[in-house]
């Protein structure tokens, strides 16, 4: 169970307030599919994923990225109970989507990289550390109901 200090919560919430969820979601998911092409296995019905530019411009990728990050935004309001917040989604990813939880870690790290790209110097080592805890907590929560 990941425990966030008051300072970490403040860091995460403050940065989140400046994030364009639609843009960042598409960017993070797109980069996951480009950098780790085997993750495309979950998105056979997304159409053209044949090149980096096709992936980054794909409207289904952008829409799904937005969906994922919107869900993360909800989690940020409930950082003390990530497992409860993601219980239903965890069951869904196990029983219906059959996604290896390793992929949650990969996507989490892609999000951290995208945040670094957007925020530059503001994304200090301390800010990164808080966000690494956040994505780790979300990954653990999403894997929690797997059986």
């Amino acid at each position, binding site marked *: 169970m990941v425990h966030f200090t008051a300072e970490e919560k403040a860091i995460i919430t403050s940065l989140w307030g400046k994030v364009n969820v639609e843009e960042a979601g598409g960017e993070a998911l*797109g*980069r996951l599919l*480009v*950098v780790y092409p085997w993750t495309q296995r979950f998105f056979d019905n997304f159409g053209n994923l044949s090149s*980096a530019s096709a*992936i*980054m411009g794909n409207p289904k990728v952008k829409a799904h990225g937005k969906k994922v990050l919107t869900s993360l935004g909800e989690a940020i309001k409930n950082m003390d109970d990530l497992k409860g917040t993601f219980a239903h989604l965890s069951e869904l990813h196990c029983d219906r989507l059959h996604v290896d939880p390793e992929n949650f870690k990969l996507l989490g*790290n892609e999000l*951290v*990289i*995208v945040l*670094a*790209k*957007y*925020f*530059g*110097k503001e*994304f200090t*080592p*301390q800010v*990164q*550390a808080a966000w*690494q805890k956040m994505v780790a907590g979300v990954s653990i929560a999403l894997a929690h109901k797997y059986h």
Partner: protein
Amino acid sequence: MVLSAADKNNIKAAWNAIGSHAGDHGAEALERMFHSFPTTKTYFSHFDLSHGSTQIKGHGKKVADALGNAVNHLDDIPTALSALSDLHAHELRVDPVNFRFLSHCLLVTLASHHPGEFTPAVHASLDKFFSTVSTVLTSKYR
């Protein structure tokens, strides 16, 4: 995993863009790693790990120089890094999981300082490059 011709071009171009900042980026990546993945500090109990530490700066430059050497020998990284591979296997014995942490923090550092150059394709090539270097450095572990 093989570095394609396109990967090699991306890697060389990225390293050129980084230029003389490589040492600083190496140090920053280490600092990020110590903050985000505190277990990595166990390998540096003999270091001053405070911000701006001379030892971190020195070590960051060492890491950057080794990576620069690999960039200059992309067609034969195992030979170029053979001595470092021996060092990690027989003396340093850093658990393999930690190479992923440092690789990730190198990517974060580069993304934050060079957002324009850090396109998805370049990002992918660099990820493959760091992964290749990590594999070489752990290749003689057993």
